[in-house]
């Protein structure tokens, strides 16, 4: 947030326009270039996220950050990491419906990646039953953080999505990965919530090129 003090500034100097919204009944100041999630966090209100990272383009895929907004007479559910902060918006970040949604989403993710600390922690917060859905252990929750990290921060494009729907997966692109990854040193691992990247890399590497054994912990 830009601290303006009492100095009179033009709009350009001040940066984005300042706005006021209400989150969980508390009046919150934010700037127009923020999304609801950032505004909430700025005000010290925690909203759980899995596919959001402050340095990357918001993706809006995990849907864990779903909140309820009211604008005029209309109330609806939106993903707070991609919904722009707006003057006068009324936001609720914890309601019965939201708990039910987060619980179910976490149950779906736990079926994919059981035992992952961040999922277990959030799971117990929202009362998720890790055995509700039949397990399909891919250990990837398709949050796309590694893909965006590689694209946006490293500009290397060595990892991407393949397939669609049920078959969607994240895969290293062998030709590029062989060249780029050793130089970068697998920085993407630092953003992965489940720690599945080394095995993913091995999967791409084994048939195509050699990879450092040290990567497999």
């Amino acid at each position, binding site marked *: 947030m830009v601290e303006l003090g009492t100095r009179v500034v033009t709009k350009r100097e001040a940066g984005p326009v300042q706005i006021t919204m209400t989150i969980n009944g508390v009046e919150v100041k934010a700037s127009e270039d923020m999304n609801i999630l950032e505004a909430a966090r700025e005000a010290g209100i925690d909203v759980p996220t899995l596919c959001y990272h402050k340095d990357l383009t918001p993706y809006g*895929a995990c849907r864990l950050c779903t909140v309820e907004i009211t604008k005029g007479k209309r109330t609806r559910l939106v993903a707070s990491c991609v919904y722009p902060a707006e003057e006068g918006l009324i936001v609720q970040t914890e309601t019965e419906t939201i708990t039910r949604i987060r619980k*179910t989403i976490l149950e779906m993710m736990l079926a994919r990646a059981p035992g992952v600390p961040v999922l277990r922690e959030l799971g117990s917060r929202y009362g998720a039953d890790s055995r509700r*859905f039949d397990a399909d252990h891919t250990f990837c929750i398709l949050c796309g953080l590694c893909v965006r990290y590689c694209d946006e921060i490293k500009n290397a494009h060595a990892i991407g999505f393949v397939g669609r729907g*049920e*078959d969607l997966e994240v895969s290293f692109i062998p030709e590029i990965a062989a060249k780029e990854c050793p130089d970068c040193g697998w920085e993407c691992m630092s953003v992965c919530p489940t720690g599945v990247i080394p095995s993913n890399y091995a999967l791409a590497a084994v048939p195509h090129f050699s990879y450092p054994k040290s990567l497999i912990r």
Partner: protein
Amino acid sequence: MPKMNSIGELNAYRGQLRNSAFPEKTCIAICCDTGCEACGSNYLVEAFNREIERNGLGGAVEVRQTGCLGYCERGIVVVMLPDDICYLSVKPSDVPDIVSETIMGGRLVDRLLYQDEDGNRIARQDEIPFYKRQMRLVFGSNKHMNPRSIDDYIALGGYSALAKALGEMTPELVLAEVKEANLRGRGGGGFPAGVKWETTRNAPGEIKYVIVNADEGDPGAYMDRSLLEGNPHSVLEGLIIGAYAIGAHRGYVYVRQEYPAALESIQVALKHAREYGLLGQNILGSGFDFDVVIHRGAGSFVSGESSALMTAIEGKVGRPRPKYIRTSVSGLWDRPTNLNNVETWATVPLVINRGAGWFKTIGTEGSKGTKIFSLVGKVKNTGLVEVPMGTTLREVIFDIGGGVPGGKAFKGVQTGGPSGGVLPVSLLDLPVDFDALSEAGSMMGSGGMIVMDETNCAVNTARYFLEFLVGESCGKCTPCREGVAQMLAILNRICEGDGLPGDIERLQDISAVVKEASLCALGQSAPNPVLSTIRYFRGEYEAHIYEKQCPAGACKSLIEYYIDPEKCKACMICLRNCPAGAISGGKGQVHTIDQTKCTKCNTCLDVCPSRFGAVTKRSKTAVLV
């Protein structure tokens, strides 16, 4: 034809086309669209040409290849103009009779006419029940033109709405007219086109785009394809008018990969329109510039969703993105972009030509104009049907569609494609209206109507649509990717007889989260087929789960075929026809079915002579009634 530089030149050219046409000239309009082409309409055209040549009728009779005439069930459809005599299921071998009797003798060929249940024959197309109850405003001119001929379209009054808009109306007036008409989008949500146009028009930025959505991925739907194939200029004319109102100078037509004929049709239309000066710079001397680019889809249902479609045109994977800032404000390459469906665009010239006042006299309070439905499934007259909004489902399915064939009972109708739902007999008097269909738990969608009879299982139908959606989901967001797959797993086990108590509630629970939390409308509406069948056919779910029975006899795991030894005459027919070799017995030896080999293909039931009636399909736990 040289480029036309003014509205006056267009009008003069139209006059010239009309004068040179000999009004009483006989025209044989032959449907050459996909359905009829599959029946051999190309050979029929050849046969007509040869026969006409042979009889020396060359200059007096025109053989016209048209787009879909709607009554696809009875293809090849031929309409003799100007008398409007309609011949159905025409084959090349019928050609000599049509030429000698109808064209040279002025008599009807009775056997090719529509015949009603009482044996009365009906000659005129507009008196045949299938056509009589329709109002074919958008789709009706197909028989009067060859879709590859821009001259046919102009002679019929084509591009007069564009001339009116450019010559007599400001962009603001065009916009106001479309808004006033309350033309709602025909491609899915029924959003008012005028409101969307206005948003794009008012959005900041010099560069704006307009797009035709011709992705049409709903199973069973083909009205958009048929419009592009049968009357491409109507779509293009609407698009140019829209671009003028919105202030766009570049348009796109997004055509799905699987529609090569539609693609060719719109390509030819664009080429002709450019040659005539109806596209390009300074259209008809108005100072307005506009041109159109075709983008071919890569075969994905979700690419029909507006934001996914735009990312696909940008050359990326067609995957939806959050749309909290609307595409009408920030769409293609982040520019204000207005997307409408094929049929929506094709309706625009009508609104401009005849005015919002006229348009509003057709339809219901909230849904104006006509809508084209593709009526398919268990219905006698499959085809494309255009009716005023407010027509009841009963009128569409029974009066126009002729009801369910084979003496079977009507069970329900699936409207709105995979995002829609199944409506039961008790809702047959529901009007086709955006809001009424949504309230009933289904939707208008793009106008798919799949009729089900008593042998279709409600659970299996829901399962079918979810299987489609699991394959077509982009996989980006968790609720849709994981939730729909989990729902499908439950439906699969129910259909296989392994359903568990509580499965209905489980489906409802997951549905709620998928609906509320998915990123795009694919996920948000994916549970509809399940929720609507639970709402209207709950008993069928319960029969599967608790009694392990499929009341419709459709779920293969829950039925078996049985030969009654008392009735079997050991005739060897079923034994010889069974493709799985599952039937044993011999001459004079009663036949039996080996259930472990049986693939439940229904062949034995089909071939067992009805006077014996020895084969029955029965539930594994009790004989089906």
